[in-house]
């Protein structure tokens, strides 16, 4: 399931007075198994882009390939299969819960696939476990009786249950407290590692993008503005800021550190820019400043 965009563009309300070009000339390719993050300011086209990934929107210009699927398609027939393979979780996915019980809601996608009943229950429970919920405890509850964080998990389980090869998440942590935020992203990372699928994360948090993704796409005004590994992307603060974004705190720190080092030299090496984990950073620093490694003047 490699993903390739060739000169893809999307215009809302084409040929109406309300025409709005949301994406233009976008060429990219995401190899299977990669964890990518899409970042960009409000209205830069992130949501538009990810809706194209499962055929909710068909490109109005250019073509794209997702595995064997070529879009735009002539007939709508194949789209259901594409949507099984590309699981898409929108922002605040808990707002789409509707079934009487958690189990039923999680199973909704499977029912739509026409799977036999025996298989459905097992897979729904497995998906619940995957998101860290106990199916025996919450399975028969109404989804509306759960806490916000639990609802979010149920909704994510409803996407994971289809066993998608590409998992697309639009700001999955919006509104959660720091612990919940971390838990969800760690969970996604764990699923990515164990299931070896493609993961696409849309986020406003530079920290999360840098920490979790292998590769970043930066959108600006509907265009692909930058791409590359987090270290590549974030070593160009000017360009990032021009897109209305900022550097992760950790990168800002490293930059200031290295500038300080230039201004007030110590006999230590500058910090590398590819650190996005605080623990690693602390290690590097303590190496340089610690008693044993020690700073010599």
């Amino acid at each position: 399931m490699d993903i390739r965009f060739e000169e893809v563009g999307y215009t809302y309300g084409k040929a109406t007075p309300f025409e709005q070009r949301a994406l233009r000339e976008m060429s990219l390719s995401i190899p299977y198994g990669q964890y990518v993050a899409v970042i960009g300011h409000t209205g830069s086209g992130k949501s538009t882009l990810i809706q194209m990934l499962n055929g909710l929107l068909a490109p109005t210009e250019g073509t794209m390939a997702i595995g064997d699927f070529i879009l735009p398609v002539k007939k709508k027939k194949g789209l259901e299969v594409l949507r099984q393979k590309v699981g898409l979780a929108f922002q605040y996915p808990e707002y789409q819960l509707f079934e009487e019980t958690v189990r039923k809601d999680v199973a909704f996608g499977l029912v739509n696939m026409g799977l036999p009943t025996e298989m459905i229950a097992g897979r729904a429970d497995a998906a619940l476990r995957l998101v860290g919920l106990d199916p025996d405890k919450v399975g028969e509850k109404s989804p509306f009786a759960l806490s916000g964080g639990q609802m979010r998990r149920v909704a994510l389980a409803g996407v994971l249950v289809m066993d998608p090869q590409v998992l697309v998440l639009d700001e999955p942590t919006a509104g959660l407290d720091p612990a919940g935020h971390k838990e969800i992203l760690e969970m996604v990372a764990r699923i990515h590692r164990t299931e070896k699928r493609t993961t696409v994360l849309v986020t406003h948090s530079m920290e999360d993008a840098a920490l979790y993704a292998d590769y970043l796409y930066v959108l600006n005004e509907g265009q692909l503005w930058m791409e590359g590994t987090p270290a590549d992307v974030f070593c160009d603060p000017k360009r990032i800021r021009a897109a209305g974004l900022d550097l992760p705190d950790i990168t800002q720190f490293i930059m200031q550190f290295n500038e300080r080092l230039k201004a007030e030299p110590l006999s230590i090496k500058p910090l590398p820019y590819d650190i996005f984990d605080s623990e690693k950073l602390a290690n590097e620093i303590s190496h340089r400043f610690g008693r044993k490694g020690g700073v010599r003047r």
Partner: protein
Amino acid sequence: MRGKTRRMAVLSLLSAIGFLLMFIEIQLPMFPMFLKLGISEIPALVGATLFGPLAGVIVELIKNILHGILYSQDSMGVGELSNFIAGSTFVVVSVWFMKLMRESKLGYWVGTITGTIVMAAVMGIANYFIFIPAYGVLLNKSVPEIVAWSQLANSSITSLWALILYAVLPFNLIKGVIEAIITYPIYQRLRPIIKTVSQ
């Protein structure tokens, strides 16, 4: 106080949903063009279940006034007026019976069927006294002339009451029953949720 503001907010949003649902009406094949079926009575039904019959009437009223305000020329208010009369009667009677029968499933059917019958009767009366005479004035025709026309289509129509009996009543009965049927699954599903709101 708190209760009143909340009630207003809930009814406003229900009216907005009702307004939107007016746009997904289904045209039944083989029926006259004005027999449209829809589920736009659901918000009023929900409102009435939550806060009593008058709330249902308010939702119907707002929904129709908004439709009239935004799309006045569609029917110059006639469509809205008849939708309001029909919808309110249906909702008020249905919910009254549902409450009487303690919101059981049977209560739903007894309620909506009675609601349909009463609604059809009220619409018959409204047509007799308002809509058909008004249509006559619009066409520059007297009521007997309209009756005479209708007689050509169906020879048993010999008076205005007969016209209503043969045309208006069956019409509304069919519409009411079908709407009760298609509304059922949705209303049943919303009921547990309504309970959590009414607390």
